[in-house]
């Protein structure tokens, strides 16, 4: 873990005799001590992880790049804005991230309602790094898979500064049967680029978190984007057959790795 372990003077750092336990967990155990305090290497390693997580929170979302990637893969992206004007406001006012800007809502109200089976929404959320790196890689194989099974795929909506619940407004305005929200999760120290996927059936403003299913920790070291796409396709097919989503569907999932983290 620490990248600069050699920088510690051996006589000053008390090493922990249970170093071998580190094979069982990613937690920062057996990191040794200087007196009772952190060795320099461990101190700086922590600081580096925190710096990367902070940078992920404040990184610029490359919405244009995401749209270009989607176009290149044959999908038609749609750029909209949430009601949050900037990142500070986004962090302070979660309610603004949960709904479209007035302009965005007006646009969707007048847009033709082609009642697609699925609308995918992509946002930076709390980690632009996650959305920049893994959103298209998750969405494209999923959409291709479902399209091959006869699903009518709607436009992919790209909305910076959005929260999960915005999927209810977008989905209901577009008359979609299912919505999937892909957005950057709150960065942990060890996982600055974790993408979350939330879906719900028959979107409406009355939906609550109990109506959503979630796959979190989508990143190369967690659930890879490709594996997440496979799991999501399974969930969508199950939901289409049973008409359920949220807790009702979750109880039927065979794979516990779908909920929460996966090792």
């Amino acid at each position, binding site marked *: 873990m620490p990248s600069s372990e050699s920088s510690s003077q051996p006589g000053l750092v008390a090493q922990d005799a249970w170093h071998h336990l580190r094979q069982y*967990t990613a*937690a920062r155990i057996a990191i040794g001590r200087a007196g009772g305090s952190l060795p320099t290497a461990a101190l700086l390693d922590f600081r580096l992880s*925190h710096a990367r997580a902070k940078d992920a929170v404040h990184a610029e979302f490359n919405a244009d790049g995401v749209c270009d990637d989607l176009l290149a893969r044959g999908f038609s992206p749609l750029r909209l804005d949430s009601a949050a004007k900037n990142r500070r406001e986004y962090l302070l006012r979660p309610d603004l991230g949960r709904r479209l800007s007035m302009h965005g809502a007006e646009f969707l109200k007048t847009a033709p309602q082609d009642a697609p089976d699925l609308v995918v929404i992509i946002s930076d959320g709390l980690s632009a790094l996650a959305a920049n790196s893994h959103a298209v890689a998750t969405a494209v194989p999923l959409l291709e898979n479902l399209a091959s099974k006869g699903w009518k795929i709607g436009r992919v909506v790209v909305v910076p500064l959005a929260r999960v619940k915005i999927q209810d407004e977008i989905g209901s305005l577009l008359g979609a049967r299912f919505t999937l929200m892909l957005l950057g999760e709150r960065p942990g120290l060890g996982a600055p680029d974790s993408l979350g996927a939330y879906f719900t059936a028959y979107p409406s403003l009355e939906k609550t978190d109990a109506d959503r299913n979630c796959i979190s920790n989508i990143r190369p070291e967690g659930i890879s984007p490709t594996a997440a796409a496979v799991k999501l396709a399974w969930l969508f097919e199950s939901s289409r057959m049973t008409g359920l989503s949220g807790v009702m569907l979750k109880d039927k999932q065979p794979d516990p790795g779908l909920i929460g*983290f996966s090792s």
Partner: protein
Amino acid sequence: MVNAARFFSYPIMPSHHRYSLCIGARRHSFEGLAELLAKASPERSGDQLAGVAAESAEERVAAQCLLADVPLSDFLAEPLIPYEEDEVTRLILDSHQPAAFVRLSTLSVGQFREWLLDYSTDGAALEAVAAGLTPEMVAAVSKIMSNQDLILVAAKRKVITAFRNTIGLPGRLSVRLQPNHPTDDVHGIAASTLDGLLYGCGDAVIGINPATDSVAAMETLLKLLDELIQRHQIPTQSCILAHVTTAIECISRGAPVDLVFQSVAGTEAANRSFGIDLALLDEARQAALSLNRGTVGNHVMYFETGQGSCLSASANHGLDQQTCEARAYAVARAFSPLLVNTVVGFIGPEYLYNGKQIIRAGLEDHFCGKLLGLPMGCDVCYTNHADADQDDMDNLLTLLGVAGCNFIMGVPGADDIMLGYQSTSFHDSHYLRQVLGLRPAPEFDTWLQEHGIVKDGTRLLATRSSHALMQHAFE
């Protein structure tokens, strides 16, 4: 909990009192105690999000000036949430003891502050009035107190509890060992637990936040910790922080439950959103007591709280988040907990924006809880989207150490890999022990010395791989 006789002794005032103050050419007016309390609160993002915060720095101080003149007895006459609407209000008013309130009954909020700071007001005096204090009185005085006031008064008030060891004694600091793992892997959890014990931590509780809230998962973890505690005769207790109903089910199945955990909030509606009410908490406590697993005491509950929880459940009734938080302590104290932990910075920047707001909230929570008679600890923590860092945590940790906080968290390297936030580390506890001369709970202190882990209560010893706990690790 409903007491019809008491109901009529606290009539709802037909119209709220209007508080007004002229400063220069400006007139500041506040409608009722709820608005006055909210506007008097030190600045924080959650009150702004709720739309209850002062709109200017001057308005905030104007509210504080008016609040200082409010008689404490007004808080008994004007419930912030109507008695018939909210069981927490009923609990607060029904359990209020007028006899303990007598010596404060003529004081205003500002005079109460001065009484708290008086040389002659010692720990015994504070203990004597605890049952006469309501959360609203305590929240009110905290809003006009400076950080040093909050520290000074809290430091006078020792709240001592016990289960397999004694927590909260003068000169002591306990640590909750928090060995979380993202998939509840028993080897991973055991590894972090041994790490913490070998760093001399875990006397408050060895408490795991499970990734999965299920009876089966909880039983597995309970057995893991029980086996460890029994085999090495560790004078401490375990807790799996699952929902209270999961714990009740585990108890009925004969699982080794030491402490029952639950998150609690300051309004009935917020508690309902947690899937609890007072009756359920009482049922859980009775179930835990029936196991009779404590050796030196029988405090069997572990509660967690945090400013912002009511608003995030849309259940704040127009109150500010710090007043809601103080009301959560009324819930906690009804069940004689071993530990109450304010998880101060976990909720995120929409409630506490930065290090300054987190530090202030941590001091307020510790003060309010202690004044109400609770064994307060604090999860000194932040998330990565808050404008805070480890130096802010060092500051709050130090301030709480000076204030006599009962316990802090011990997370390997301060990095919780399950919950994705930063707390305090085992190493942090040794910083505080050295700089303030604080020792672990006495029973645990003795155990650490007998097992060659710590010398003189404050210094870690080099641990050989032949150590019994290390042998445990090899199995």
